């Protein structure tokens, strides 16, 4: 088994089609992207005890009341499950990045399947014994590590298979992470409906089933994935003989990359782009209801549309970056994002729900695009040899943004409401602050230059890497 998973046993033979690698990567990313749909479990998790006692409030008459039985978990506490998962995503991607590079995609994708699906099983156990720390450990910590390793495991392999279109390749995989919610949410809802009994709302059985189904799905990706043989190149591909301004044909290893200002500028670029997006992503439903008075059902439709644009933006913007260049792509994100965030309060005052929706769909497409374009940006600046490990280290920006974004938007909103600002206007300041964050991101992006000569691999090390 260990031999099968080894990098040396996953080298593609002659005639292998590189177009088999993106679906292998999607097998992983579509599964771990379920994390974005974790909120479908929140309400059932908050009603485990009342469901067991057959005493949950009627949703038609109970309004916003969710937790009704003493001892049931609160929504606020349940929110930590997703937060923990995102924090451990970033940490594990950073810590295990070098290991992922060393062992190759097959072993690391297998580890991701074990951790993510094992995390679901442990969380199911925690739900069945009604022990929240066990759920935190299962989905948040173990599952979160699976998220991080799974997220980065196919990236450097895809870049090696698609040296001519790295944006398209990594965008396809990372699109899967956005698309995972579109599958995970209806699957979880259908399974919970199937497993509901008079004394259970079926959450534990649903998590158990999803853990098994996702494991099988991810293992298919493990079987498909291959690494290219040394010296392989796609037909017709001519490697650049001289590096362009921001695209190197040499390599920087992780340890050296961490000493460069480019690494920290890109960290900030990702952090600011994600902070601005993740804050509104979590608040979109409430925001459209309070600004335009739409129903909760219609607001859920808006959130669904945002999920599709979050997914579509990943492949669209990353593919476009192959033609426009990564720096230009991020300039568009930051300039267009700033303009749109400034305009959102005006659209609210105008009462134009159509313009509001369009603005947010574009913003969220650029949020997804930011994730999908960063691996190719890293490859351009640092070369392909250690890009998986460097990408893993940069993903700590996601963990930080996962805490900063929602906290910032919630805090500002609470402050506004306490100051007597009407609910419909309480988001204006938030939007202006998000626009300000994007301006800082623009400055960071504009400051990025080619990596200094002294950080590149030199001599025999560079030849071995090449």
């Amino acid at each position, binding site marked *: 088994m260990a031999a099968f998973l080894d990098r040396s046993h996953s080298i593609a033979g002659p005639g292998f089609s590189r177009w088999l690698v993106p679906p292998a990567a999607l097998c992983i990313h579509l599964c771990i992207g379920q994390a974005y749909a974790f909120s479908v479990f929140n309400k059932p998790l908050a009603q485990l005890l009342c469901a067991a006692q057959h005493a949950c409030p009627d949703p038609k008459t109970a309004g916003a009341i969710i937790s009704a039985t003493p001892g049931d978990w609160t929504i606020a506490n349940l929110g930590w499950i997703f937060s923990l998962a995102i924090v451990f995503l970033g940490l594990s991607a950073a810590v295990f990045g070098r290991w992922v590079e060393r062992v190759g995609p097959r072993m690391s994708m297998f580890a991701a399947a074990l951790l993510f699906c094992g995390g679901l099983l442990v969380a199911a156990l925690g739900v069945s014994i009604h022990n929240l720390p066990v759920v935190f450990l299962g989905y948040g910590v173990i599952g979160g590590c699976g998220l991080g390793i799974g997220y980065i495991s196919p990236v450097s392999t895809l870049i090696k298979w698609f040296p001519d279109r790295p944006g398209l390749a990594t965008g396809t995989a990372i699109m899967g992470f956005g698309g995972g919610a579109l599958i995970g949410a209806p699957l979880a809802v259908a399974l919970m409906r199937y497993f509901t009994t008079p004394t259970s709302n079926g959450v534990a059985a649903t998590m158990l089933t999803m853990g098994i189904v996702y494991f099988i799905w991810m293992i298919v990706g493990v079987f498909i994935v291959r690494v290219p043989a040394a010296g392989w190149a796609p037909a017709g591909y001519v490697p650049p003989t001289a590096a362009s301004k921001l695209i190197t044909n040499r390599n920087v290893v992780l340890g050296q990359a961490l000493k460069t200002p480019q690494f920290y500028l890109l960290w900030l670029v990702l952090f600011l782009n994600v902070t601005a997006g993740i804050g509104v992503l979590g608040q979109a439903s409430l925001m459209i209801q309070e600004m335009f008075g739409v129903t909760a059902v219609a607001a*859920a439709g808006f959130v669904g549309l945002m999920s599709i644009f979050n997914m579509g933006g990943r492949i669209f913007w990353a593919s476009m970056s192959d033609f426009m260049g990564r720096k230009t792509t991020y300039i568009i994100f930051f300039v267009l994002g700033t303009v749109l965030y400034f305009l959102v309060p005006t659209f609210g005052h105008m009462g134009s729900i159509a313009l509001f929706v369009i603005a947010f769909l574009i913003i969220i497409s650029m949020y997804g695009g930011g994730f999908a374009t960063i691996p190719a940006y890293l490859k351009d600046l640092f070369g392909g040899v250690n890009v998986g490990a460097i990408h893993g280290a940069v993903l700590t920006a996601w963990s930080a943004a996962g805490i900063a974004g929602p906290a910032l938007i919630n805090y500002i909103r609470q402050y506004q409401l306490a100051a007597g600002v009407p609910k419909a206007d309480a988001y204006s300041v938030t939007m202006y602050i998000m626009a300000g964050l994007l301006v800082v991101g623009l400055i960071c992006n504009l400051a990025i230059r080619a990596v200094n000569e002294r950080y590149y691999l030199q001599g025999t090390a560079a030849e071995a890497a090449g």
Partner: protein
Amino acid sequence: MARTDVSTPDAANTPKLIAAWLFVGIPLLFGVFDTLRNALKLFQ
């Protein structure tokens, strides 16, 4: 060292390619369709 070896995929890969893309594409398309169906409620 510049990469110089080039290989062309086999035609025998086609069934594998179709199967692999369907394996990930069908659930994804189902998810997009289901989400769009729910999103229509925004415009009702």
